[in-house]
């Protein structure tokens, strides 16, 4: 594959960069050992008392012992998880935030209101009453509120589980247009506009060489056709081209949008298991419904092996059909989420060390990893599409 070269050289560079980063950090640790004895602890427990970092940490649960500290874990997880707000700049009431609509399917039917009703409270302390029902938001999820507040003033009950606090309140079905949904719908609109416009330029300039956006996208379309679909699907490729192209450009667009740090990017759409599982289920459904009899025969009654082996292999093969899409979903989700966590962690180094002097290194590495993430955005779209094509190809392959 053409990408081997890129992978190899990039991997080496990444290794070099990380070695440098780790070396740099160890030097820093020694230097600040006296003033910052906790910095050698894992980042999620590192507590640095600082007034400016404290301002960013107000979404940090009701945990009293970390009230003034900077909780890296919750900060990062806040950024990679879905949200009912879309912050354009600033923070909370001091910034400019897009309040996304909340759509709930409750016990008493559909309830809609703006997320501004929660007044940025994410700890379950702000109760919203609609249609005689009371809702609170905690960790960006909507719950039915308790009748009375607990000792922290929150209308939710917590349970300690695996060292994390889990809200036990009942949730209504949440069909809100969240940050992820908004970003994804935006990418759908952009993709549809982009590709219908180049489709019209194809019909306008029929038989002529591509021009403008068309000439930028055509090599990518041809890449999907010639390097993804054809090698894996053979002569049957054309029936699956719409799916493969759509998946490829949808994932790529959302990956890239996720890397853009400001509105309308920044939502971790492809790093959300919901989206990746929807896509993986689509691939699974295609392989299941388009699979020919050879494919099913290989699963339930493997030819060329003794009968006891056939019986032994059938359940394994059947599980194999499920693990493929699950691996697809988790691979994309984990890669993109990991990239976001990495970039955020590098930026958080400034707050962990509580020093402005770390900022240049931190930003340098964040930019470097950000650029690699652009490569990863493409590669993950490519891998998802290739594996989808491969699985479909296995299901529709002719046996001779």
């Amino acid at each position, binding site marked *: 594959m053409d990408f081997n070269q890129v992978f190899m050289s990039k991997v080496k560079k990444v290794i070099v960069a990380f070695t440098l980063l780790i070396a740099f950090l160890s030097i820093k640790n020694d230097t600040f050992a006296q003033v910052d004895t906790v910095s050698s602890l894992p980042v999620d427990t590192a507590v640095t008392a600082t007034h400016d970092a404290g301002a960013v940490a107000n979404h940090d649960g009701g945990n009293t012992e970390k009230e003034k500290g900077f909780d890296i874990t919750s900060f990062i997880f806040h950024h990679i998880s879905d949200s009912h707000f879309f912050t354009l700049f600033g923070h909370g009431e001091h910034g400019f935030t897009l309040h996304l609509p909340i759509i709930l399917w409750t016990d008493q039917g559909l309830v809609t209101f703006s997320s501004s009703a929660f007044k940025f409270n994410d700890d379950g302390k702000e109760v919203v009453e609609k249609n005689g029902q009371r809702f609170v938001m905690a960790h960006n999820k909507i719950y039915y509120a308790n009748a009375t507040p607990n000792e922290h003033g929150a209308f939710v009950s917590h349970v300690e589980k695996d060292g994390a606090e889990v809200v036990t309140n009942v949730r209504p*079905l*949440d069909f809100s247009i969240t940050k992820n949904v908004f970003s994804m719908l935006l990418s759908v609109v952009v993709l*549809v506009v982009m*590709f219908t416009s180049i489709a019209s330029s194809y019909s306008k300039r029929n038989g002529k060489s591509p021009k403008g956006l068309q000439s930028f996208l055509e090599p990518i379309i041809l890449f999907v*056709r010639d390097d993804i679909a054809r090698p894996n699907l053979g002569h049957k490729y054309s029936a699956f081209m*719409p*799916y493969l192209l759509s998946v490829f450009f949808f994932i790529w667009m959302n990956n890239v949008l996720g890397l853009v740090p400001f509105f309308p990017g920044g939502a971790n759409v492809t790093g959300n298991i919901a989206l990746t599982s929807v896509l993986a289920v689509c691939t699974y459904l295609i392989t299941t419904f388009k699979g020919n009899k050879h494919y099913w025969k290989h699963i339930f009654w493997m030819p060329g092996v003794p009968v006891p082996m056939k019986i032994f292999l059938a359940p394994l093969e059947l599980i194999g059909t499920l693990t493929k899409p699950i691996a697809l979903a988790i691979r994309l989700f984990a890669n993109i989420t990991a990239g976001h966590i990495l970039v955020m962690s590098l930026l958080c180094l400034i707050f962990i060390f509580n020093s402005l002097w770390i900022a240049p290194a931190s930003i340098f590495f964040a930019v470097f990893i950000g650029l690699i993430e652009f490569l990863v955005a493409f590669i993950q779209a490519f891998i998802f599409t290739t594996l989808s094509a491969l699985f479909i190809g296995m299901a529709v392959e002719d046996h001779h």
Partner: protein
Amino acid sequence: MDLLVPEVGLLVWNSIAFLLLLFLLAKFAWKPIMKSIHEREQSIDDALNKAELAKQEMARLTSQNQDLMQQARAERDEILKQAKTLKDSILNEAKKQAQVEGSKLIEKAKIEIENQKKVALAEVKDQVSTLSLEIAERVLRTQLDDKSKQEALVANLLKDVELN
């Protein structure tokens, strides 16, 4: 672990959005785009094939031309050769004919000469006989002037006759 549990709302929205995207793009984008790309590739292939054919045709025509030239040259040579043989044969024929004609003429001339000779000879004979007769007459006249001599001759002649 929150990260690994898909939200129902997100699942629903994602499914709707992706299926909508798939439908719209498949209908309004991929179909015309792929068709157009396919057609263009086809036309490029066709054009290349045609160019190849034209090249072959060119080569064929060139070789045909060369063949024709060669053939023409050979024909010309043949014609020249034929003309030369024809000329030679005509020349020979003419020579032969001339010879024959000449010999015929010579023959004729010979015969003519012979004839002339004969005629001349005959004439000469005639003249000789006339001359001899005249001479004989004159001789006889002179010899037979006297009577005795005439009688002697007659007697002589008679003697000869009797002998015969």
